[in-house]
C-alpha cells in the first residue's frame, strides 16, 4: 500500500469487503482503481498487498471466485460469500468505532459525544 501505509494497512481487509459489499463482483485491478478513485489518489493499493489479502479472504471462506474470459484473457472475479457479508458488517462496525475513538482523542471538539 502506498501513502500512509502504516495507518491504512490494518484496514485493507475492511476496504476490500466494503467495496465488494457495494458491487456484486470485482476483479483485482478494478479494486485498486476504485480505491484510487474514491480517495482521489490519496490511497493506492499495490499488487503486493491486494492479492495476498484477497487470497487470504478467499482461503477463509469470506470470498467466492468466478473466472471469466474477458478481452483475450482470463479474469478472476471476487464476490462476498454469506460469511463474508456478515464479516463486512462486523468489520465496518469495528472500524467506525475505531474512527470515533480516534476522533475523540485527536480532535475532541468534533467528537459526537
Amino acid at each position, binding site marked *: 500500500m502506498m501513502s500512509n501505509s502504516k495507518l491504512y494497512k490494518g484496514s485493507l481487509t475492511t476496504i476490500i469487503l466494503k467495496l465488494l459489499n457495494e458491487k456484486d463482483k470485482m*476483479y*483485482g*485491478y*478494478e479494486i485498486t*482503481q476504485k480505491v484510487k478513485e474514491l480517495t482521489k489518489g490519496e490511497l493506492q493499493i*499495490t*499488487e*503486493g498487498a*491486494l*492479492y*495476498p489479502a484477497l*487470497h*487470504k479472504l*478467499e*482461503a*477463509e*471462506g469470506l470470498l467466492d*471466485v*468466478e*473466472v*471469466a*474470459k*474477458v*478481452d*483475450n*484473457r*482470463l*479474469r*478472476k472475479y471476487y464476490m462476498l460469500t454469506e460469511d463474508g457479508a456478515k464479516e463486512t458488517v462486523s468489520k465496518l462496525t469495528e472500524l467506525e468505532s475505531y474512527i470515533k475513538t480516534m476522533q475523540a482523542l485527536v480532535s475532541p471538539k468534533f467528537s459526537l459525544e
Partner: protein
Amino acid sequence: MKKLSKDNIQFIENYLENSDVLYADIRMEMTDHVASAIEEQMQTESHRDFYFVFKDYMVENKARLLENNKQFLKNVDKSIARQLFRQILKLTTLFVFVFSFLVVYKLINYIEKDQLRNIVILFPMLSTIPFLVLYGLSLKIFRLPRFSGIERLSFVYLIFFQVLNFVATLLGNYIKTNTNDSLVALCLALIITVSTVVMQLTFTIIKQYRRDYKFVN
C-alpha cells in the same frame, strides 16, 4: 479503450512464467492485472507501443508483483487445511471410520499374526494407490495445468503418508509381541479413514478447479 491482442497477453504470460510465477491460477490473475494496467496506460499514451509500456510497467512494479507470488502458497495451504478440517467433520467420515473399524475387526480373526503384521506395514503404501490413480488421471485426462491447489495436495498427502507409515510401523512391532484386536482394528480404520478423507479432498479440489477454471486449456 484499446485492448491488448492475444499475442500481447501471451507475451505477458510468458514473461511471468519465466519470472518463476509457475502456477497457472496465480499467473492468470497477474496477467490480467498487468494487462489492465498497460491498457489504461496506452489509453493515455496512445502513441506508445505495447512493448515500451510493458517494459516501463515492469521496471516500476515487478518487485511488488512478485511479492504476491511468494505469499500465494501460504494462502493455498491455508485453504487446503480449511477444506480438510471441514471434510474431517463430515458425518460420512465418522461413518467410514466406524464401518472400517467393524469390518477390519471381523477380518482380523481370519488372518494369521505374521500375515497381519505384513498387511499392517504395507497398508499405508496400498492406501496411496487410489490417491495416485486419481491424481494422475486428473492431471492427464482433464489436462489441468499446474494449479497451486492441486500441486500442494501431493505435499499434504506426503505428510499424511509419513504419519500413517509411522503408525503402521509401530503397530507392526506391537503385533509381534501382543495381540489386541481392537487396537489393531482402530489403527487400520484410522489409516483407511485418513486415506478416504484425503481422496475426497483431492476430488473436491480438482472439481473446484475444473469449475472455476473451465476456460483454461
